[in-house]
């Protein structure tokens, strides 16, 4: 059975990842630091919640992200001067983001399907066999005539890309990237997509 704090974290914090990443991306100009900021925000929220769980997770999450960015600005780790101004101005955004959770089963399925289509072809095929046909890693390897190592490598990649694609995806902005044709390219740089929404 899962730790209640972990459950809370998934349902109340991770569920807001799309909005969080959007927020970070608007303030922080260095794209390659977004993932790091996101994880650091999560760490701070989780550690604070371990002592005392905030009554309302979402505002707390955004306040934590803001403070984190402010800290980094103070420590001179900021690359762009606009960031400083934005950090102060961004309080408003906390209320702007919609609660992207408790979707209907249908919407959830659609979201996950989109995410699947973002995977590179080989990776996508392997994830399908694993999740839909419920084959074990070994069975997938046998079925495709690949080495176990290769299949495992693809699943590891699939897990990480899916996390970005599923959690980082804003439900409202679904149609922009609905086509699957260039999914490989997209699968490689999902992080960069976050800022565009």
């Amino acid at each position: 059975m899962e730790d209640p704090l972990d459950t809370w974290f998934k349902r109340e914090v991770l569920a807001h990842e799309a909005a969080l990443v959007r927020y970070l991306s608007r303030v922080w100009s260095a794209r390659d630091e977004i993932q790091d900021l996101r994880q650091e925000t999560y760490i701070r929220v989780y550690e604070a919640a371990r002592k005392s769980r905030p009554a309302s997770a979402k505002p707390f999450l955004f306040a934590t992200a803001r403070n984190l960015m402010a800290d980094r600005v103070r420590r001179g780790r900021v690359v762009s001067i606009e960031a400083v101004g934005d950090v102060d101005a961004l309080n408003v955004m906390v209320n702007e983001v919609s609660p992207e959770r408790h979707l209907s089963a249908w919407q959830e399925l659609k979201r996950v399907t989109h995410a699947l289509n973002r995977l590179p072809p080989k990776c996508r095929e392997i994830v399908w066999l694993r999740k839909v046909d419920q084959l074990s890693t070994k069975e997938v390897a046998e079925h495709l005539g690949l080495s176990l190592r290769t299949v495992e490598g693809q699943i590891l990649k699939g897990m990480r890309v899916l996390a970005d694609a599923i959690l980082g995806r804003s439900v409202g902005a679904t149609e922009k990237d609905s086509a699957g044709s260039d999914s490989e390219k997209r699968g490689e740089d999902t992080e960069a997509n976050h800022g565009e929404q």
Partner: protein
Amino acid sequence: MESSKQIEEAASEWLLRRDSESWSDEDQVQLTAWLHAATANRVAFLRLEMAWDEANRLKALGAGFPARTVPSAGQLSELSGWSDAGAVPRHRDMAHAGAGRRKRAALAATLFAMAVGVYLYTAAPFSGDRYSTPIGGVTSVPLKDGSSITLNSASKIRVQLGETERRIDLAEGEAFFEVAKDPSRPFVVHAGNRRVIAVGTKFSVRRDGDNVRVVVTEGVVRFEDTETHATTSDAGKAAIVEASRLTAGAVVRAAGDNTIVRTASLPEAEDLLSWRSGYVVFHETALADAVAEFNRYSERRIVIRDPRIAAIRLTGKFRSNNSDAFVRLLEESFPIHAQHLPDQIILSDGLTTGTP
């Protein structure tokens, strides 16, 4: 210091290993140690785990394709050709001309069936384990997951313990839920368009047609007011109109479009649940409401003939199955006259009828 990317890679390695058949208790111990070693590890793992679990939803798509056949992204992205506004395919999607038409129509048919399936699932309240109580009966129903449900008089529920959700439909009446903690399967009580979602807690839900009352006595639940569009293109979607987080002591009353959330004292909330031990408790309750409450527990109805006495306020704790004693007390305490008939008890103004 490890970068977040390195940690994420390590987390995915753990998740992959945990998913494999050779996962042992010893492995679990090591994973637990790794998770404890740094919060960075834990949040990275939780995040991947959540998404990887979410991906299990893909299994639903398997029905549309032969086993071990991976559909092209194009085939699946037809899904996204469907408007966000609804789960049902728009007509023109099915009417495409061209070589791929039949294939697309078949896929659309499968997905349409799924969409309808989702809708029917929400709409059909009766499949699954059903329990009901007669008038005057209070029953306890233990569930396989360790939770327990106490059903009040004249109540009907359906129970479905699924892998991702424990779903209860309250068709009518009232039930008190003691929910065993299982974060992987939220416990969701549906009462018409309202939903109460819990992980592990104690609460009751009462339903009289469209009126719903929720009382929370322990832990936290989420209350949702939803609106299901049965006839429009939105079929299958239960749009959430309003949602509140309820903590112990909260009493929600929802009727029509109105929802009132009130924080009661815990003893007061407990009083609202005294039916479990066979009592009804009134605090300055209007006689009309008190009588309605008693009538839930007995075939022999109490009827107020005289509107003037309906507003009398009373306080006290009564046996819910003993309306005779209740009526006798009324006669002794108020200018009320009771007429006992085989199928009902008629209350009238004692001053008017001339009897004390």
